[in-house]
């Protein structure tokens, strides 16, 4: 065999190895990301479950409001951070998306549980704390709205619970019944949409100033 043909074969073999290496590393990194999210989700879920269990146990205690006041911001912030990580990492997936779907659905369960608990705390302790249900999709307006909400969360005492409203339009996706129910209850037809304190609905992109005026008049 002449040197050119031999070199072609060597280069093809080496390139094939590189392709396989790239795929293997991609799959391995998917696994690392999923492990990272799973660990974080486990921690977040445990915090929420502990929180709910404590809430049920001390529901009638006079320390209830004090305890809730200290725990809610911490858990809420952790949950919001996890949502950001999930959005960033699931887009990098190379292989099967089912693991991400499972994590996402568990996360939405966690969000709803937390949302209910915060509302309960507000009712019981008479606290004037703002909760926002945020339904987003992949649009530019949703991306901008996400930045606005990050800014507001940094500066105001507000809890944001975010849900991807686009997911359920994909017939192949494993639908989260949590998102389905929330969308139906609040008649969500477009994104971004915000539900303020389970009452007021704001549709479309809303800049920081306008949103602050609406939510914190």
């Amino acid at each position, binding site marked *: 065999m002449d040197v050119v043909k031999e070199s072609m074969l060597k280069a093809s073999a*080496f*390139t094939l190895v*590189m392709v396989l290496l790239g795929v293997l590393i991609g799959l391995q990194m998917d696994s690392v990301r999923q492990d990272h999210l799973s660990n974080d989700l486990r921690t977040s879920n445990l915090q929420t479950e502990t929180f709910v269990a404590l809430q049920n146990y001390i529901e009638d205690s006079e320390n209830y409001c004090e305890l809730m006041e200290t725990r809610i911001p911490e858990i809420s912030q952790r949950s919001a951070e996890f949502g950001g990580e999930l959005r960033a990492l699931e887009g990098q997936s190379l292989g099967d998306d089912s693991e991400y779907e499972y994590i996402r659905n568990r996360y939405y369960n966690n969000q709803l549980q937390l949302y209910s608990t915060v509302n309960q705390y507000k009712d019981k302790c008479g606290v004037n704390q703002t909760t926002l249900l945020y339904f987003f999709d992949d649009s530019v307006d949703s991306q*901008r709205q996400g*930045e606005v909400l990050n800014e507001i969360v940094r500066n105001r005492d507000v809890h944001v619970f975010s849900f991807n409203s686009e997911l359920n339009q994909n017939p192949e996706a494993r639908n989260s019944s949590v998102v389905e129910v929330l969308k139906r209850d609040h008649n969500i037809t477009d994104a971004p949409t915000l539900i303020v304190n389970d009452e007021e609905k704001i549709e479309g992109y809303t800049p*920081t100033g306008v949103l602050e005026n609406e939510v914190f008049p």
Partner: protein
Amino acid sequence: MILYIAWLLIFSSVFLSVFYLSIYSGVKDRREEQIPEFENPPSVTILMPAYNEEDVVEEALDSVRDLEYPNFKVNFINDASTDSTLEKAQKYSSEKINILEHEVNKGKAAAINTGLEATEDDYIVVQDADSKIELELLYKAMGKMEEDRGLGGVIASIKPLSAENFIRKIQTVEYQLTNFYRMLMTEMNTLNVTPGAFSIYRTQDVKDVGGFDEGNITEDMEMAFRLRKSGKNFEMIYSSSSYTEFPSTVKALYNQRVRWARGFIYNAIKYREMFLNPKYGYFGTVQLPMLVIMPALILTSFLMVFTGIMQSLYSYFITWSAVGFQLPELGLDNLYFSLISMNWKVYVPLILSLVIVAFIIKTAYRYAGEKPENIGALMFYFFAYFLLQSGFWVAAVLKEVTRSKKVWT
């Protein structure tokens, strides 16, 4: 989609790099070549076309005047220069150096043909007026031509006459690699160009194929394609060099490279039947397709970088339009998250392919027995030169599409 384009780009680059490294592993050492001795040295005419070369013409004529080859002359062709090229050249007029003139500017190929018509010597050497050659190069090239009658031409490695500014230093790195690749192409018998800095041909071969193509802005490449088509091969002398003036400004480099790229497009279309045609050996089945793939890879790389930058800017714009300027968050947690959220399935093959390319550059320098003189130029060549190259190719394609006027610059 972007992932698949990135992979195609990276793996094509890996394939080509490994392919050339494999060729290199079996290459014969061309760094030490004997200077042949002739009982009756064949006659040779050096054809030196010139257009507005007043800054370098004296140096070029000095170098050929002092060649101690017993049987040569120089046909210097002034292609209606508008500066003092002719006045300076006329001072060298002698029995050995003929000064020929064009009343009107006809282009480089026409100037070479004027010199070709005025000689009956065995060989012609085409040497630009901004280039210098060494005596031993002439002997070695002549030796190869005499030894192998199937050779259509011999070229030399190219080095800078001077590399005092950054643009020339970058090209010095580029030519180090070009010389290395041409040496490998000699091994594969796929050389596709006979550069104006130094190329030697049999006079009769060139006359038989009708001389240089006067409508062509890369007449050297066209001649190589035409001689290849007529069944001739080419060789390169690696151990001796021709020294040429590299463009010293981005504009001059742009003009030269856009001309080369347009010349390639024109010649590729003109000789399209040679592509993938086994009749022309690896020149047709390997080299010509590679000549198309390489600029396609360069352009794709540019588009990838451009897309990446645009996406980052777009993302920044979205943030800015929503909440104004934001500094990125720092810290170990963010570092870990940034690391795992990186697109490793692209970065790992990309880093490996860069390592292979770096290894080829190192190998090219080691083979030449040299070390990079300017690390900045080397780094620029390694990381950013493809951006310039893709700009040249985009300009060339646009100019071809819009049929912009072709000029000898």
